[in-house]
């Protein structure tokens, strides 16, 4: 693969990235880093206020696992959540108490990252 191809490929990946939902795996894959390094990179970006850290509460049903709601910290995770997709698809259990395995971390590009960069 030529250098130009690599750049084009990286540009394509970057253009597909949703800045509202950046997962550590997105960063790991983009820079081809070990997971721990990519995680560290994300946490540093939070400290530098480039990223905001978010926690998604996923549906407990294995066949669903959609993010039902998003909070900023684990203390804000609701005691009870209802998945309206599972409810409306008549999947039976659709109200549950979230457990740690139902939580998924991601990052979003901070709204004021441009201001931060210009300072």
């Amino acid at each position, binding site marked *: 693969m030529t250098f130009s191809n690599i750049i084009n490929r990286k540009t394509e990946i970057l253009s597909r990235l949703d800045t509202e939902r950046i997962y550590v795996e997105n960063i790991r894959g983009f820079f081809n880093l070990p997971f721990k390094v990519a995680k560290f990179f994300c946490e540093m970006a939070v400290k530098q206020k480039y990223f905001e850290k978010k926690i*998604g509460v996923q549906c407990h049903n294995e066949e*669903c*696992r*959609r*993010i*039902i*709601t*998003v909070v900023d910290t684990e203390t804000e995770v609701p005691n009870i959540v209802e998945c*309206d*997709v599972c*409810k*409306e*698809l*008549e999947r*039976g259990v659709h109200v549950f108490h979230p457990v740690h395995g139902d939580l998924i971390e991601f990052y979003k590009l901070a709204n004021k990252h441009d201001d931060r960069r210009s300072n």
Partner: protein
Amino acid sequence: MNTDKDLLTRLLKLFPIKAVKEHFDLQGKWDEIIVEIFAKHPQKVIFDFVSANIDYTRQHVHICSLQRVFRSSSFDTEGFPLPILTAVNLNNECTIVALPVITFNVLVTKPYEETTVQFYQPIKVTLKNRHLIIQVTTLEKNLSHYFEGERKVVDSSREPHEEYNLSAIQYFVDSKGLDARKCDIHKGIKKLWEDEIIDCKYLKRKKSKSTDTTTMDENYTIKRDYPDEYEGMKDKPLLKTLFRYIGEKPEYFCEHFNADPMQGVLGIASFPENTSQIQNIVNDILEHN
């Protein structure tokens, strides 16, 4: 467990409490309302309420095509396979509300016991133009709810199955020379989607060599948030997919409904807000189909 009052109580609880309170002009919780209804009204009044308000229930709607246009004059309800509550056959439209009894054979714990739980299951059958529409009220899924304390239902089987009653109704319609076949509703569904009357929260579609699902997080929807995926879906067959009403007329459709377009089946899993919403969904799909 299965007295007349038990069955009537379960029947009333298939409806939203708001609708029951309004109809019988009562206040309070379920237990209080049901005592009042039994004290003041005979069974016939409850059955009349069921007939008039079946569109308030959670239900499956099965849509079939008829091979010829329905004519009231050449149709009668003799031989209908289920107990009929009401039947109206006028102006080239026939509506039958039936109330079969469904039996669940259950195995319950603490102590282990084999027993039965019975329900009335309201079914509305409509013949109009070139369509047969069968609306089947869905029953409570959690049967443990009907046993006290820590008793749990660990196994259950249902008699007769929904498919059995559907086949019996289709067989009856066929015997009247109408020849009902399940109706593919892809065209109607996709038109409503294109016109932004509905958008999708859970998409299940056939690709040439695979089945693909997309479940949207939070309140995101396919067409609005994944326009490329929407474009790529336009010519693909859909399996059971969940739609959300996004049209401008308030409460015109139920907020959500699921649809299996190849089978011609709709599912309404939450109580409708009024008795027009389900008819609006069916009519608008068929109008564009």
